[in-house]
Every structure is written in structure tokens, then in C-alpha cells.
């Protein structure tokens, strides 16, 4: 059992606070992704779990044991670094076997387990090469092989795919997911890429400025963002945010356009409240070219400013209430700039955020 818990974990560099009291429980065999913009403290948090950074305050437990004062080698974790950190003076076989050798395993055992890991990751033909003779994707696989060969309690990944080109990144992402399905182990994965977070995670932890903004399954975080920060960070293209004021049963937008308050949010708003209306591009579509045609909605005529055809769909730039918004047109239809189309806003999937705090009105 390797449950990882963080209790009020704090990291300071001198006077500079970087992580401000994080509470998080990562279940046995769970795949948790820490996601957030660059500099928000993801790597620092991961490195405190690994034992590569001192913990300024709070407790880190692995498998129930407090590990604050244990060096990395006593935590039985393994880590995949952003630049792979393969040992350049050793071939792939020795890179994979290094940890086992340090642990004093017999040569026969090392050979067996290296072969096993190489088999899982398709590294067998590369065992005699040095890291310099490998492509980016192959290095990535060796780094993962080095992580699994020791059979650790948990894998820690720090932006392992950020050095790969887009196509390879997609492939490796799938491999990491498959790997986790094969070797069920607790995983803590750090990335700034929300697509990686959505696709890989059992649970996403959205971080902001050294704090946890939201924890939830990918669908929870996508469908119920607790703040404008999460709403615009998760999902691509980002959610449109339109400032407005609650007036009775409607949201009055900046230019006076009135949009009904979604039924499920009626209990959370009061008259005169300053809000931001959040609608994803997928939920603003020309009538007959959207994803959801039933359920409550509002229809508005909007002018197409720009259309980016993506094949099965087009991303449309238009203006709503005096502000540029992005919308989606599904189906093989070309929209021309200047064209006026009737768009349907899927209000059952709209969000309202308190303009003062940026928090969802559902959060109290």
C-alpha cells in the first residue's frame, strides 16, 4: 500500500514562500496529475515528495510513514525527469540496472528484471546503445524503464513529455497510460499541459501560486470549475468569460444583452450581484451545428469575424456583448467572415462566477 499524503506542506526559499500549505491525499494505485501554470510550485511539491527538496513545514507520508527526514533513496519511489537524466556514460542496460546494482541485487536478478522492463517498453533492441545514440522518444522510454525496473511504491513524473514534439508527445502519453494500466502503481505526474492532465489523470490537482485551487476527476474539474482560473485553464480553447450583473432572473451583460440565469444556478445568485458568465466555445454554436440542441438555451444573431476550419469543425471568432468570444461550428460547413448566423448558447452548461472573488457562485 503506497498512499501518499501531504499535510499542510510548506516550502520556503529564505523568505520567499513557494508552496503555501498543501493538503492532499493520493490513494494507492491512483494516477494524480498536478497541473498549473509555470512557476506555481508543482515541481517543488513533487521534489518534496521525492526528497530532493527539504520540507519547510508540514508532513509528507508515503505508505503511512512520515518521510520528511528520509533521503530519496529510503523513500522507495522513482522519478522521471524532464530532461530524462539518463547517465550518459552508461549504456541503456546499465542505466536500467543501475538502481538494482546499487541495491545489491545479484547479476542474474538484474539481468532478469532489466529484460522484463525492456520488454514492457520495447527497449530490447536498444540495450547496448548509449543515451547519446537514442532519439528523444527512446530516451523517454529508457527513463520510464529505469523507473519501473525497481518496482517502487510510487512513480513521480516531472513534465516528462515537454521536450518531445507534438506527435511523439501524443504517442508517449498513451504509452504512459498503458504502462500505468500494466504496472498498477501510485503515480504523481506534474505538467503544465491541461490536455495531458485531462487524458492521464484519475484525479487532477489544479495548482495556482503555491496553493491547490481545485481537486477532482477530469470531468468534475471540466464540468464544475470552482473558479475562473480553473475554468480558463482547463479546456481548449478556453472558456469565454463575459462580465455582467444579475437582474432578477437574467444576467445583464455589458451591452445590455440579457441572458436567462441557468435554472441550476438560480439559488446561488442575488439581485445586483456582479458576475462573470462563463460559456465554453463548444456551447456557443450556430443553430443546427452545435453539440446540444435540446435543453434550455438562448439564441442570438452574431457576426462571424474569423473562421478557422479544423476539418470536422470550425473555430469561430465573433463578438458577444462587445467582447470577442470563441464559438464552435460543428459539421462540414464553411463560415465566411462577415456572415451573420444565429448562435445558440447552451445555458444549461453555462457557469456563473462571482466577479469580486473569481469563485464559482456555487462555492460558498
Amino acid at each position: 500500500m503506497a498512499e501518499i499524503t501531504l499535510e499542510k506542506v510548506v516550502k520556503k526559499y529564505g523568505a520567499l514562500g513557494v508552496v503555501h500549505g498543501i493538503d492532499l491525499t493520493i490513494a494507492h494505485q491512483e494516477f494524480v496529475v498536478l497541473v498549473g501554470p509555470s512557476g506555481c510550485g508543482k515541481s517543488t511539491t513533487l521534489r518534496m515528495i521525492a526528497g530532493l527538496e527539504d520540507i519547510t513545514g508540514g508532513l509528507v507520508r508515503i505508505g503511512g510513514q512520515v518521510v520528511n527526514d528520509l533521503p530519496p533513496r529510503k523513500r522507495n519511489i522513482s522519478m522521471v525527469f524532464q530532461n530524462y537524466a539518463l547517465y550518459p556514460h552508461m549504456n541503456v542496460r546499465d542505466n536500467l540496472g543501475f538502481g538494482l546494482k546499487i541495491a545489491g541485487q545479484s547479476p542474474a536478478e538484474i539481468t532478469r528484471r532489466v529484460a522484463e522492463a525492456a520488454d514492457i517498453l520495447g527497449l530490447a533492441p536498444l540495450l547496448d546503445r548509449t543515451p547519446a545514440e537514442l532519439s528523444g522518444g527512446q530516451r523517454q522510454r529508457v527513463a520510464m524503464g529505469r523507473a519501473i525496473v525497481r518496482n517502487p511504491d510510487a512513480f513521480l513524473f516531472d513534465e516528462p513529455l515537454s521536450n518531445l514534439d507534438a506527435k511523439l508527445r501524443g504517442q508517449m502519453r498513451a504509452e504512459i497510460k498503458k504502462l500505468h494500466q500494466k504496472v498498477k502503481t501510485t503515480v504523481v505526474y506534474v505538467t503544465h499541459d491541461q490536455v495531458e492532465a485531462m487524458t492521464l489523470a484519475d484525479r487532477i490537482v489544479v495548482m495556482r501560486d503555491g496553493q491547490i485551487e481545485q481537486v477532482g476527476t477530469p470531468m468534475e474539474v471540466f464540468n464544475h470549475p470552482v473558479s475562473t482560473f480553473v475554468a480558463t485553464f482547463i479546456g481548449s480553447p478556453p472558456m469565454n468569460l463575459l462580465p455582467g450583473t444579475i437582474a432578477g432572473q437574467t444576467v445583464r451583460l455589458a451591452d445590455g444583452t440579457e441572458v436567462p440565469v441557468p435554472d441550476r444556478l438560480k439559488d446561488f445568485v442575488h439581485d445586483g450581484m456582479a458576475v462573470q458568465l462563463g460559456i465554453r466555445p463548444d456551447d456557443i454554436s450556430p443553430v443546427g451545428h452545435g453539440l446540444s440542441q435540446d435543453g434550455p438555451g438562448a439564441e442570438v444573431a452574431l457576426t462571424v469575424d474569423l473562421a478557422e476550419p479544423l476539418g470536422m469543425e470550425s473555430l469561430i471568432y465573433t463578438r458577444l456583448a462587445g467582447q470577442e468570444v470563441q464559438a464552435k461550428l460543428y459539421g462540414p460547413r464553411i463560415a465566411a467572415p462577415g456572415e451573420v448566423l444565429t448562435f445558440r448558447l447552451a445555458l444549461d452548461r453555462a457557469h456563473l462566477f462571482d466577479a469580486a472573488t473569481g469563485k464559482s457562485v456555487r462555492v460558498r
Partner: protein
Amino acid sequence: MTVTVESRASKQAKKVALWLTTFVLMLVMCLPGLWVVLSAFRPNREILAKPPVWIPEEITLDNFGKIFGFGAEQVGIPVGSYFTNSLVIALTSTVIALIIGVAGGYSFARYRFRFKGGIFLGLMLFRAVPGIALSMPVFMMWSRLGLVDTKMGLIIVYVSLNVPFTIWLIDGFFRQIPQALSEAAQVDGCTRWQAFWKIEFPLAKSGIAAAGVFAFLTSWNEFALASQLTRSTDSKTLPVGLLDFTAQFTIDWAGMCALAVVIIIPALILTFIVQKHLIAGLTFGGVKG
């Protein structure tokens, strides 16, 4: 068509000019060395001949026989002792300078500590002071401490002369090695110490070897301070020993040149080693993707 021919011709001309310049420069640099080597193998009479004899008429090993104390003619110079002194002093001071250089270079490359920049700058400035300027105070201190004319005295001087350089060079090599390698090793089960010896040290080996060779050559060839701090066969080194060939009215050029060749040979061998290692140091890759 003509344009390309012309440009090819001008390219050719440039190449030739470059080679000529290189050749002339090399000639200027190598000529004295060549003269020394040639003179080591011929008698004094031919060395002093006017007009100079460039192509030796007879090649002889007599000069070497003379300085090493065998053969017909002999000089009363204890070359053997000088050689031993030189070797002991240069090797010992190199080993010590390397140990300090590795520890210091690693610290500068990996750790943050107070006054780090100042200490580093101080070390480099110390290197900028010409050694000879320090010979007077060093001589006075050493005579108080009884270190004049001892190998120990010279070893201490050479260590302090070499340490700034070895620290600087080795620091550069450790800096090239990403910190993540040592961290990966620690996660893989190493102590900090094991991570250093198994990962970082082997990767910096070329740099350390290069620093060692430079330090050795500095100590091996140093003349100014050694000539002040040594007196007798207890501590006199080969470069100082060269002066023994100067009598009041005569200079035994042949003997001196033969000894100079004896000094140059280990230096040459080591220079070839450093060349190999410097290249090895520059080509180590595969760290980043």
C-alpha cells in the same frame, strides 16, 4: 560559369595564404625548440660554429651520457637528484592541488554559500599575481619556518599556485553536468557520496585529468620561485639545475640543451594526454534531449 571559376580560384588563394601564415608562425614558434633539440645531439664545437651549422654533421648521444654521468666525459651536476626532486615535487603538488580542486570545484558548481562570488573572485585574482612578486615574502616566511631548500616548501608554493586554476577548470566541468543526474542517482538508491563517485566524478574525469596535467606542467616547468627557494640537491629541480651549466666564463650549451630535452619529454607526453582528454571532455553528450 566564369564567376564560379574565379571564386574557386580566390578561395584557393585564400587557403594558400592561410597555410603560409600558419607555417611562418609555426616556424617562429618552433625554431628555438628545434634548435635546442638539435643542439642536444651535437658537440659544443658545432653549436658555437660561425656561421651556424643548421644541419648537424654528426649526431651524438655524448651530451646525454655526460649529464647522466656515464660515457667518456662527465659534468659534475647531479641530474639524477634534480630529476627525482622535480618528479616528487610536481607529482605531490599536483595530487594535492587536484584533491582541493575537485572538492572546491564541486562546491562552487553545486552549493550556494555565503561570499561565494567573492571567494571565487579572490581565487582568480590571486592567480593574476605573478608568482615572482611573492618570492620575497615567501622566502622570508619559509626561512623562519625552515622550509627553504626543502621539497615540502616548494610543494606548498606550487599547490597554492595551482589550486585557483584547478578549481576554476573543474568547476566548469561539474557545471556542465546537469544536477538532475545526481538527483536521479539518489532516487535510484545512492547516497549523495555514491552519486558523486558513480555518476558525477566519471563524467568530470576528463576535466580533472586535464587540470592535473596543467598543474603538473606548471610545477614541472616553474623556475622563478624554485630558483629562490632551493639551494642543494635536497630540493633543486630540473629547471633550476639548468643554471648549473653556466660557469663563470663558459656556458656548456650542449649539456644544457640535453637537459632541456630531458625536461621537455615528460611535458610532451603529458601534453598529448591532455589533448585526448580535452577532446573527450568536449564531446561528452547525451545529457539533454
